[in-house]
């Protein structure tokens, strides 16, 4: 299996995540799309780790750190979404325009 396959595969996943972030209006869906993009990055890290025959498995360790940061991000993100829903009765990001001039 050439290195090209996982990289193109990750590119597809990342593009799907980009579409989700840009097109969806539900804040929870946007967060899920971000998870998809982070996973695409993890695929790249693990694939390069395998193909560079890294004696120190740095790519896999980096993927673990990405997962840890993603977990923290989801915790805070969903707390913010809940807070917005409590205050404004909506999770539609088009209607959350407090910072709009």
């Amino acid at each position, binding site marked *: *299996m*050439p*290195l*090209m*396959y996982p*990289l*193109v*595969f990750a*590119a*597809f*996943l990342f*593009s*799907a*995540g*980009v*579409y989700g972030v*840009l*097109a*969806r*209006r*539900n804040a*929870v*869906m946007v967060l*899920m799309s971000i*998870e*998809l993009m982070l996973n695409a990055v*993890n*695929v790249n890290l*693990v694939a390069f*780790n*395998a*193909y*560079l*025959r*890294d*004696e*120190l*498995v*740095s*790519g*896999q*360790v980096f*993927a*673990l750190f990405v*997962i*840890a*940061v993603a*977990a*923290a*991000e*989801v*915790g*805070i993100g*969903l*707390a913010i*979404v*809940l807070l917005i829903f409590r205050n404004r009765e909506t*999770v*539609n990001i*088009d209607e959350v325009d407090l910072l709009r001039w």
Partner: protein
Amino acid sequence: MTSSEQAELIVFIILAPLAVVTALGMVLTRNAVYSALLLVVNFFCLAGFYVLLEAQFVAAVQVIVYAGAIMVLFLFVLMLLGIGNEVVVKEQMRGQRPAAVLLALGLLVAIVGALAAGVFDAEPASLAAANEGGNVEAIGRILFTRYTFAFETAGILLVVAAVGALVLGKRQP
């Protein structure tokens, strides 16, 4: 092509389209709960893919942390908010969807083009040397020697995130 490489390729051919289809279904379906469940399937495909790339520990973490903890958190919030279908009241930004399709496809073309222009025809490799004493041991060794500081920082980050989520989620008096 040896038989193990062939098996690898077959597993990839099964997993990769399934993962891409579930990812697309996840961003396209209107029902948020269905998207969350499709994303779980996607994460399981990625876990299988990590096993294929000889990253067994990352695969286990993917299933436990992502498919387990994070997706349960998502589903929990979805149930708490009680939002099934995305109701489009009115389009606030004109042409948002076509623009999103255009940008996502453009990014895909750019990445694949860049990959095709690069020299990524590396031979299939084996991590046998790195994984000699076991994949978990290899990761543990580097995590607690070279990346100790980053590891501890990640712990602090998780504590701060947990406390922050608690403070944000607390009902204000």
